[in-house]
């Protein structure tokens, strides 16, 4: 090979790099390991973890433990999927392109929207992208955000939106409508909200329409198996986290964001979109479309800088939804709702435990007030093999005694009964 190139050594190929910049000593990283030892070392590290398989978990807050059919991992592990890249050459990428078209369809069905893109990084950045998109569409600078939107989603909006000249205004749910005015680009809320409440957004949609602001709803997809979809309320943009759709929790990633709009906003949408077309013989095929929105063509005028998204995780979601199907998906959503209500009922029998929002309906997550510090309660229950949920003190100063609790379809009656028994011991 060197002879073909016409050099005598590989070093000659590096002469463009000034001598002074070339490393003289090996890097300070550990020596090489064989594959067996790599796996052994990582297994040893992993034993320092306590996974949700080893506890009975009631932790949710945006990431949920669900039963994932074995076929999901087997299918996304196929090399043709795993080792491909963005389908720039559609004729060599029909497999992926079709699965993305199917994913877009499923997300539209769940959210009640007309158009979904090929995926985003995750729920938080999808929400932030929606805020920036609303700024671009309306030419307005004020982003109104519900305080009951996931705190991390709000943090991401605070990272993204001010950089393009927006001001972010947070308001309590009850005060959200009043915060929407003629300067508002969009209002962003969550459904079910961070506390698991299911609240009608009709008043927000009406108010936003009056003043020409966009509505952005961050929705949890599994609950949309039974809940009225945001699209049915007339929402303009629906975003969310697709992790509950068969994607491993994986200590926070990779997950998959989704992003849907009404048809009139399709040219403002960030990221890839796959559309149907045909070849010269009339055979159906799929391609990335509306490409002139994107960074590699439009550069600084692009709708977003996003390039790589989360195609493999979107594929996992597509397979998960297919495996459960119309009926199974509904059954999962129903089981989550029933388990959470059963769980709440048991916990509320404990003296001193009350609902954080006693008057509001909830889906499969709810907040409780405890008679003592929630972190201390969480830590005490860990000793009993129970991960009790998320203490809310870090996110809300006035809620140090509150715990956010989720119960999905994987929890059993016996586990929830034990949770109530152990919680009763710890709080009293």
């Amino acid at each position: 090979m060197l002879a073909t190139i016409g050099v005598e050594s590989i070093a000659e190929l590096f002469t463009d790099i000034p001598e002074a910049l070339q490393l003289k000593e090996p890097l300070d990283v550990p020596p090489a390991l064989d594959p067996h030892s790599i796996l052994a070392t990582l297994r040893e590290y992993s034993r320092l973890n306590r996974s949700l398989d080893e506890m009975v978990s009631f932790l949710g807050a945006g990431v949920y433990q669900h039963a994932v059919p074995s076929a999901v991992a087997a299918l996304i592990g196929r090399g043709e999927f795993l080792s491909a890249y963005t389908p720039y050459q559609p004729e060599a990428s029909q497999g992926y392109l079709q699965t993305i078209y199917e994913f877009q369809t499923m997300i539209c069905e769940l959210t009640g929207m007309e158009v979904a893109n090929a995926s985003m990084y995750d729920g938080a950045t999808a929400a932030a992208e929606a805020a920036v998109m609303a700024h671009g569409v309306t030419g307005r600078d004020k982003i109104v955000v519900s305080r009951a939107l996931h705190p991390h989603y709000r943090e991401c909006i605070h990272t993204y939106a001010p950089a393009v000249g927006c001001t972010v205004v947070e308001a309590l749910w009850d005060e959200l409508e009043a915060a929407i005015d003629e300067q508002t680009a969009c209002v962003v809320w969550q459904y079910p909200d961070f506390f698991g409440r299911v609240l009608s957004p009709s008043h927000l949609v009406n108010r936003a329409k009056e003043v020409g602001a966009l509505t952005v709803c961050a929705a949890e997809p599994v609950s949309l198996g039974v809940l009225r979809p945001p699209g049915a309320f007339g929402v303009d943009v629906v975003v969310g986290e697709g992790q509950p759709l068969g994607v491993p929790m994986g200590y926070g990633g990779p997950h998959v964001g989704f992003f849907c709009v009404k048809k009139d906003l399709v040219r403002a949408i960030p990221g890839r979109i796959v559309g149907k077309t045909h070849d010269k013989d009339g055979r159906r095929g799929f391609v990335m479309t509306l490409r002139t929105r994107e960074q590699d063509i439009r550069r600084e005028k692009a709708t977003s800088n996003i390039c790589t998204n989360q195609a493999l995780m979107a594929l996992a979601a597509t397979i998960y939804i297919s495996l459960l199907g119309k009926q199974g998906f509904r059954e999962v959503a129903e089981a989550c709702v029933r388990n959470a209500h059963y769980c709440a009922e048991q916990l509320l029998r404990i003296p001193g435990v009350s609902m954080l929002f006693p008057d509001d309906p909830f889906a499969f997550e709810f907040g409780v007030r405890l008679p003592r510090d929630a972190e201390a309660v969480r830590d005490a229950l860990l000793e009993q093999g129970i991960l009790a949920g998320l203490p809310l003190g870090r996110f809300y100063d006035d809620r140090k005694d509150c715990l956010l609790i989720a119960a999905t379809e994987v929890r059993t009656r016996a586990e929830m009964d034990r949770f109530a028994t152990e919680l009763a011991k710890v709080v009293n």
Partner: protein
Amino acid sequence: MSDFPLIFERSRPGRRGVRPPACDVPELPLGELLPSDLLRDEPPALPEVGELDVVRHFTNLSQRNYGIDTGFYPLGSCTMKYNPRVNEEAAANPRFTQMHPLQPDGTAQGCLRVMHELQSWMAEITGFDAATLQPPAGASGELLCLLMIRAYHESRGEGEQRKVVLVPDSAHGTNPASAARAGYTVESVRTAEDGGCDIEDLKAKTGPHVAAMMLTNPTTLGLFEKRSVEMNEILHAAGVQVFCDGANMNALVGVARPGDMGFDCMHLNLHKTFSTPHGGGGPGCGCVGVQKHLEPFLPAPVLSRDGERFFWDHDRPQSVGRVHSFFGNFLMNVRAWAYVRAYGREGLPEIAKHAVLNANYVMERIRDEFPPAYDRVCMHECVVTASPLKKHGVRALDVSKRLIDYGFHPPTNYFPLIVPEALMIEPTETESKETLDAFCDAMLAIAREAREEPELLHSAPHHAPVGRLDEAWAARNLDVRWSPGERVASNAE
């Protein structure tokens, strides 16, 4: 030949796949648990198919897709190297996959240890003082770097005056797009005759109004930017921060470090240089390295250690904030960790050396038909042009489509924008000489076909699941979702 059915077209009423866990609490009607006006009227129109239907559907779809595991994938700028299977096994460990990101730190010490080691290795490999693994992709890392630079200038009272970001005319589209997202105006810097930066143009455009320059090194032309140290001095003298786009780190790993060249920050694509799978367009993983002066602005929380205990430090008052829901794509970190350990300190430079050797070999073998855009030694990829074929009416796109018939994934075409009829070929270090020769033979054969039978190229591909697709039609007749009631595929049983 009939169309390949959609999963929806395989649906039959009442059919079902996998059963969810049985619910053992009282099955109250949902109307008793939730207000009826907040419940769905109609269930979503999801497919009704058996498990085997699903497995076959997606298995057959996978066979309509080309991956590195299928064959050679020299997609320039994307570093399509082999994704070692050991990484997949490591990341599939339930003690990693079944970890919730909001667990107490004390129960996640294994994850934190993996991340802490990886972030320190990344800082060492790139020559920076600190690193974060939070950005979920390369473009996210770029944006993060610019936001940190912005916060840095603001902390020095220069936020108002510095509103411009310089980007070479050869840059990836993500660079100007990220700059716009960080609130900056973009100015383009010209490429000189030798493929490097035009220093005079750079000097003319640098000044106290400039916040940052974004420089890919090696550049998107596959060339080492020989003047990068000089450029960084010019830029620093004017108070400009310099971001290194690490898309092409595969040419440098173990050989040289951007941190030593005077860059202030950089991003890495772990899915390029560090072998995590591209997954059909993600997940990526966009590690970022910074020098000391940018460290206070890193996204919160920052992974720290106290003796043997690792913890998330949320108390970061100068942080630019969060760029991901949680801590980034952790399971990709596990894979990158395994990759670094597989090569180790002695092995890492071999990655760059063989990547550069392979790229130069391909460039040399095809140069008579596809001359290099800049006639000098290239780094890990070569940018060549299909311009000589234009007189036969053949374009870079036709060459690419014909390569599919020969069993290869096409290179990147029409990028960088400054090279006419560009074909950007990145073989990576994981390919054998035999594979490279087969690819070069195909390229030369296609050049012959271009002269003798150009129609063969215009109508390519001929041996793919579909012929050349009408992309313009797709944009004019937007159909981005299946609708219930649409035609049922003709081959449905």
